C-alpha cells in the first residue's frame, strides 16, 4: 500500500506541475491532464483486455496512457466501476484524496492565477463528488477511506475558495448525504460509528470554515442539534436521533466523545449568535423567523447549559456554552440602542439572569472537590479552573446588561442573606468569586450607592470572613481539602482587598477583617514546619497581599494597628522565624502606609516611628554581622531582605501626587522642615548602616546588595525639592557614596546600578551640577575602568552609552562641552558603530541619532555638533555601513533612524560619503547606487527600513524570507 500511495503522490505532482502554468501560457497544447480519476478508471478498465507482455511493453503502455489521459468517463461508467470492486473504489477515493491533500499542502500560493484550480473545478471535482455521493448513498457501510477523502476535499475547498474564483465549489449534496447517513446511524446497526465520524467532519467545518455549509443545511443541523427550527422549515423530528446519541454516550461513559459533541454544537451555535441577537432583541423585521420561535430556541439552549451533572467530570456542555453566552451578551451590548425592541431589554435581562442562575452552582468548588476525589489527574482540575475563569470573564460582560441593580446588588444581597448554621459556604465562595470580579473594576470610594448596599447587608462581611476562617482551618494532610481551602482563602482575601474602599468607611467591619487576616498570618507562621510548607507559603502570600491592600487604602483608619504591626514585625523579623522575605517586605510596606498617615499631632511622631522601624532593622542586622562565624547564604539572604525592607519603607512613605489626605496637606510645611533637619538622624543612621554592610567585601561585590543600596540612596531623587521625605539624600552624599563604593564593587555586575543612580542624580541636580563635577564623575566612574573592564563587556558598553544618552536627553551641554567629548566619546563611540552585539547596536545608534537630532540643543550646541559631525562624517558613515553590512537581519532596524538622521541633517554630504565608502565595504555598485538614490528620496521609517533591507539582502546575497 505505501508503494501505491507513493505512486499516486507522484502522479498528483505531475498533475499539479502540468497545470501550474498560467491560463493561456501553455506553449504545448498537447501537454495537459484534466482528470487523473478518469485516467485511472480508463487504465483499469483495460486491465483485463491486455496481456502481461503488453503491460511490460513501454510503447504499448505509452499509447494506452496517451489515449486514456484525457478521455472522458461517463457517470454510469464511473458508478459501474466503483460498484465492481470495493478495492478499486477505495483506491479511487485514496487517489483523489492524495491529489487534493498535495494541492492543499503546496497551496500554490505564490501563483494565484494558476490554472490548476480551474482544472480541478471543471473535472476532478465533478468526478469526485459523484464518487463520494455514490459511496455515501450505497448503504454498504462507509469506511475510513471515504471519511478521509471527504475531510481532504473540505480542507482543499476551504483553502481554494480564498485563492481563486474557481476554488468555490458547492458541497451541499455531499453535506446533505452526510447528514442523512448520520441520522441513520444507530446503536443496533453500527453502534453510532458513522454518526460519530460524520460529527467529527461537521465539527471540523463549524470550527474553521462554517460558511462552507449553506443556510438551508445549517437549518437542518439546527433542528437535529437543538430540536427547534426557527424558520419552521426543517424537520425537528430528527432531534430524536441526537437525544439517542447523547444517551448512548452518557450511558457508556464516553466522555471524550461527549466533549467533542459539546465543542461541535457550541461552534455551530456561535455561527448564528449575531443573527439570534437581532431576532431576539431588535425590531429588525424577519419574514421567516419569529421571536417566539427564537425564545423557544433560547429555552433549549438554557436547558443545554443546565444538565444536572458535574461540569467537566460528567458533562461538558455548560463549560462550552459559556463561550456562546458570552458571544450573545457581547452581541446584545453592541446593538445600536435605537434598534432594540420594546421588550428586547427585558428579554435580555430575563435570559441572562437565568444564565447566571445556572452557572452559579456550576462553578461551585464542591464540583472541583468531586473532580479531585474522582481522579488524581490534574488536567480536569485545570480545566475546571479555566471554566471558573471563563465564567468570571462572562460576568464582566453581563454587568453591561444587568448593571449593579440586577447583578452586583443581587450578589451582595445573596452573600449576606444567610447566617449561622444556614450558611452554604460553597455558595458564598462562588458568589464572592463573581462579586470580586465586578468590584475589581470599580472604585468603591467613589461609588456611595454600592457602599450603601454593602452597609445595609447585615451578614456580608461576616460570611466573607467565615469563608476566610474556613480556609484557614486545619486541613490536615488531605490534599483535596487543602486545595479547596486554599481557594476559599484566595477568593475571600481577594474580595476583602477589593472591598477596601468600602471598609475604609466602616471601621468596625474593617477591624473584623484585619483581625482575621492577622490571625491567619500567625497560623501560617506557626504551622509552617508541619510538612505543608508550600501550602502555608501560598496562604501566607495571599494573606499578606490582602493586609497590604487594606493598609494602603485605609491608612488613617488602621493607624490604631501601628503598635500591633510593630509587634508582628519584631516577631517575623527574627532570624529564625519561618516567614518568607516576600511577607517581611510586604509587612514593612504596610507598616509604612500606616506611618505615612501619622501626622495628626507633630511631625516628630512620624519621625519617631520611622526611626523606630530603622532601629529594628539595624538591631537585627547588627546581630547577624557581629556573629563570629563565616557568612552563610542564609545570612546573606536575611541581611539583603532587611535592606529591602528599608527600601520598601521608603516606597510606602513616598509622597504621592494623588494624596487626598487633607491632614497631610495641612502639615506639609512642618513635615518638610522636619525632614530637612532630620533631628533624629534617620538618614545618617541608614547611610551608616549601608556603609557598614558594604564594608564587608562579600556584600560590596554582591550585585543584589548594590542594587538595594542604590535603591535606598536614590529613593528621593525623583521628588520635587519641596516634598517632605525621610530618604532624601543630598547630591554630595550620593556622589560620595558612589565614588566610595565603585572601587570595591564587582563592576561587570554592579556598574549598571551605579550608572542608573547617577543618571537620576544628574537629572535631579542638573541645575546645580557643574561641568567640572560632571567630568569628575564621568572620569571616576567610567573612564577609569574603560580600557580594563568596560571594553571587554558588551553590557557595560551599553551602560556607558546609555549614561551619555540620558545626559543628551536631560542636559546635552554636559556631554558635548565635556573635556572628554572629543578626546574620548566621539572617537570611541564611532568605533562602536561596527559592533556586533544587539544591545550595543541599539544604544550606539540611538547615541549618534541623538547627537545629530536633539531638541534639547541650544543654537550653540547645534553649531558645535554639526561642525563635529561634518569633520568625521565619512568615518562615521563607513563605520555605520560596515556594521550594517555585517550585522544580522534582526538588527537592521536599529540603523534606520540613524541613517534617516544623516540624510535629513546632512543630505548632500551623506550622499558623497556613501558614494565613497560603500565600494570599500563590498563590491556591488548597482546595489549601492540604488540604495543611495532611494535613501535620498525615502520618507518614513518603514520605507527607509525596506530600502536598507533591500541593500543588505542584495549585498549579502540572501533571500527575502
Amino acid at each position: 500500500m505505501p508503494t501505491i500511495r507513493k505512486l499516486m503522490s507522484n502522479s498528483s505532482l505531475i498533475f499539479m506541475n502540468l497545470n501550474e502554468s498560467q491560463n493561456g501560457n501553455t506553449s504545448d497544447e498537447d501537454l495537459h491532464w484534466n482528470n487523473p480519476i478518469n485516467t485511472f478508471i480508463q487504465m483499469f478498465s483495460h486491465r483485463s483486455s491486455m496481456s502481461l507482455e503488453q503491460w511490460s511493453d513501454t510503447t504499448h503502455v505509452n499509447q494506452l496512457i496517451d489515449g486514456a489521459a484525457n478521455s472522458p468517463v461517463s457517470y454510469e461508467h464511473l458508478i459501474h466501476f466503483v460498484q465492481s470492486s470495493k478495492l478499486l473504489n477505495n483506491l479511487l477515493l485514496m487517489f483523489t484524496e492524495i491529489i487534493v491533500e498535495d494541492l492543499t499542502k503546496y497551496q500554490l500560493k505564490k501563483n494565484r492565477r494558476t490554472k490548476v484550480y480551474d482544472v480541478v473545478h471543471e473535472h476532478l471535482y465533478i468526478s469526485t463528488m459523484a464518487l463520494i455521493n455514490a459511496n455515501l448513498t450505497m448503504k454498504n457501510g462507509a469506511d475510513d477511506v471515504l471519511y478521509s477523502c471527504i475531510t481532504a476535499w473540505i480542507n482543499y475547498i476551504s483553502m481554494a475558495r480564498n485563492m481563486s474564483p474557481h476554488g468555490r465549489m458547492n458541497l451541499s449534496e455531499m453535506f446533505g448525504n452526510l447528514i442523512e447517513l448520520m441520522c441513520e446511524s444507530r446503536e443496533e446497526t453500527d453502534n453510532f460509528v458513522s454518526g460519530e465520524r460524520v460529527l467529527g467532519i461537521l465539527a471540523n467545518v463549524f470550527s474553521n470554515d462554517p460558511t462552507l455549509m449553506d443556510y438551508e443545511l445549517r437549518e437542518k443541523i439546527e433542528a437535529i442539534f437543538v430540536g427547534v427550527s426557527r424558520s419552521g422549515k426543517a424537520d425537528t423530528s430528527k432531534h430524536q436521533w441526537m437525544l439517542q446519541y447523547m444517551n448512548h454516550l452518557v450511558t457508556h461513559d464516553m466522555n471524550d466523545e461527549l466533549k467533542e459533541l459539546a465543542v461541535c454544537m457550541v461552534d455551530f451555535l456561535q455561527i448564528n449568535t449575531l443573527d439570534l441577537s437581532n431576532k431576539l432583541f431588535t425590531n429588525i423585521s424577519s419574514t421567516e423567523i419569529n421571536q417566539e420561535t427564537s425564545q423557544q430556541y433560547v429555552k433549549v439552549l438554557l436547558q443545554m447549559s443546565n444538565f444536572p451533572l458535574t461540569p467537566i467530570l460528567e458533562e461538558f456542555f455548560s463549560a462550552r456554552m459559556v463561550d456562546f453566552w458570552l458571544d450573545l451578551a457581547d452581541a446584545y451590548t453592541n446593538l445600536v440602542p435605537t434598534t432594540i425592541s420594546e421588550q428586547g431589554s427585558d428579554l435580555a435581562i430575563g435570559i441572562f439572569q437565568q444564565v447566571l442562575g445556572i452557572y452559579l452552582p456550576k462553578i461551585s468548588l464542591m464540583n472541583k472537590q468531586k473532580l479531585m476525589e474522582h481522579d488524581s489527574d490534574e488536567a480536569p482540575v485545570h480545566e475546571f479552573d479555566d471554566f471558573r475563569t471563563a465564567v468570571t470573564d462572562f460576568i464582566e460582560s453581563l454587568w453591561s446588561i444587568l448593571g449593579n441593580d440586577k447583578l452586583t446588588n443581587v450578589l451582595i444581597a445573596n452573600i449576606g442573606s444567610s447566617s449561622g448554621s444556614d450558611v452554604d459556604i460553597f455558595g458564598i465562595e462562588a458568589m464572592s468569586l463573581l462579586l470580586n470580579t465586578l468590584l475589581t473594576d470599580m472604585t468603591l470610594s467613589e461609588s456611595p450607592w454600592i457602599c450603601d448596599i454593602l452597609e445595609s447587608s447585615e451578614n456580608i462581611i461576616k460570611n466573607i470572613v467565615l469563608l476566610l476562617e474556613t480556609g484557614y482551618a486545619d486541613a490536615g494532610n488531605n490534599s483535596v481539602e487543602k486545595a479547596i481551602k486554599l481557594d476559599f482563602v484566595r477568593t475571600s482575601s481577594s474580595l476583602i482587598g477589593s472591598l477596601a474602599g468600602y471598609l475604609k468607611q466602616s471601621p468596625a467591619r474593617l477591624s473584623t477583617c484585619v483581625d482575621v487576616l492577622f490571625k491567619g498570618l500567625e497560623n501560617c507562621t506557626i504551622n509552617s514546619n508541619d510538612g505543608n510548607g508550600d501550602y502555608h507559603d501560598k496562604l501566607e502570600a495571599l494573606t499578606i497581599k490582602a493586609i497590604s491592600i487594606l493598609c494602603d487604602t485605609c491608612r488613617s483608619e488602621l493607624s490604631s494597628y501601628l503598635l500591633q504591626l510593630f509587634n508582628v514585625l519584631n516577631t517575623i523579623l527574627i532570624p529564625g522565624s519561618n516567614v518568607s522575605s516576600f511577607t517581611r517586605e510586604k509587612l514593612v510596606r504596610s507598616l509604612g502606609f500606616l506611618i505615612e498617615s501619622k501626622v495628626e499631632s507633630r511631625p516628630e511622631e512620624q519621625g519617631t516611628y520611622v526611626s523606630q522601624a530603622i532601629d529594628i532593622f539595624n538591631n537585627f542586622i547588627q546581630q547577624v554581622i557581629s556573629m563570629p562565624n563565616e557568612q552563610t547564604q542564609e545570612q546573606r539572604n536575611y541581611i539583603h531582605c532587611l535592606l529591602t525592607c528599608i527600601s520598601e519603607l521608603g516606597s510606602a512613605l513616598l509622597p504621592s501626587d494623588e494624596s487626598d489626605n487633607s491632614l497631610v496637606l495641612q502639615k506639609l510645611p512642618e513635615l518638610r522642615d522636619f525632614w530637612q533637619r532630620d533631628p533624629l538622624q534617620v538618614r545618617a543612621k541608614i547611610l551608616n548602616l549601608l556603609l557598614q554592610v558594604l564594608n564587608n567585601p562579600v556584600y560590596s561585590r554582591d550585585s543584589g546588595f548594590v542594587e538595594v543600596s542604590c535603591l535606598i540612596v536614590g529613593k528621593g531623587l525623583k521628588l520635587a525639592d519641596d516634598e517632605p521625605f525621610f530618604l532624601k539624600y543630598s547630591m554630595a552624599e550620593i556622589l560620595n557614596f558612589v565614588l566610595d563604593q565603585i572601587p570595591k564593587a564587582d563592576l561587570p555586575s554592579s556598574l549598571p546600578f551605579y550608572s542608573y543612580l547617577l543618571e537620576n542624580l544628574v537629572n535631579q541636580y542638573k541645575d546645580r551640577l557643574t561641568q567640572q563635577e560632571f567630568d569628575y564623575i564621568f572620569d571616576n566612574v567610567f573612564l577609569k575602568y574603560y580600557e580594563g573592564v568596560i571594553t571587554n563587556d558588551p553590557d557595560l558598553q551599553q551602560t556607558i552609552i546609555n549614561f551619555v544618552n540620558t545626559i543628551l536627553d536631560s542636559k546635552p551641554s554636559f556631554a558635548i562641552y565635556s573635556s572628554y567629548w572629543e578626546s574620548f566619546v566621539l572617537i570611541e563611540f564611532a568605533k562602536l558603530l561596527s559592533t556586533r552585539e544587539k544591545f550595543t547596536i541599539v544604544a550606539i545608534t540611538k547615541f549618534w541619532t541623538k547627537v545629530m537630532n536633539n531638541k534639547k540643543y541650544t543654537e550653540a550646541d547645534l553649531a558645535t555638533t554639526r561642525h563635529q559631525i561634518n569633520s568625521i562624517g565619512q568615518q562615521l558613515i563607513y563605520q555605520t555601513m560596515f556594521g550594517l553590512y555585517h550585522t544580522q537581519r534582526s538588527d537592521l532596524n536599529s540603523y534606520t533612524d540613524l541613517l534617516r538622521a544623516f540624510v535629513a541633517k546632512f543630505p548632500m554630504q551623506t550622499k558623497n560619503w556613501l558614494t565613497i565608502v560603500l565600494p570599500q565595504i563590498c563590491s556591488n555598485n548597482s546595489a549601492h547606487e540604488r540604495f543611495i538614490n532611494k535613501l535620498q528620496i525615502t520618507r518614513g521609517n518603514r520605507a527607509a527600513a525596506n530600502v536598507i533591507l533591500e541593500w543588505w539582502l542584495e549585498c549579502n546575497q540572501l533571500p527575502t524570507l
Partner: protein
Amino acid sequence: MAVPGYYELYRRSTVGNSLVDALDTLISDGRIEASLAMRVLETFDRVVAETLRDNTQSKLTVKGNLDTYGFCDDVWTFIVKNCQVTVEGVPGGNSGDAQTTVSVDKLRIVACNSKKSE
C-alpha cells in the same frame, strides 16, 4: 482545515528573529538552500500558532488609554498608552497566584483571527 497558510507575524518575535538570523547564516555558509529556509519558516509559523493555541494557560489583561485603533484585512491594531499589562497563571504552576504587572508607556496590539491561522 486549510486556508492560505499561517500568519507570518511571529517571525518578528524574538525567537522568530533568532531563527531568521540562524537561517541567514546557514544560507551564507552554503549549508542550506533558500527554499529549505522558507520551508523551515513555514513550519515555524504553523508550530508557533499551534503551540500558542494548545499549550498556553496564561491570561493577559491590558488596562490603559486606547489611543488609536484600526481594522484592515481582518487584522485589528490597537495602540494603548499608559497601560498596565497583567500576566496571570504562569505555565506549570497550579496555584494561579503568580501575577506580574508591567507598566508600559505605549503598547501596540496586533490581533488576527485565530480561526484563520491554520
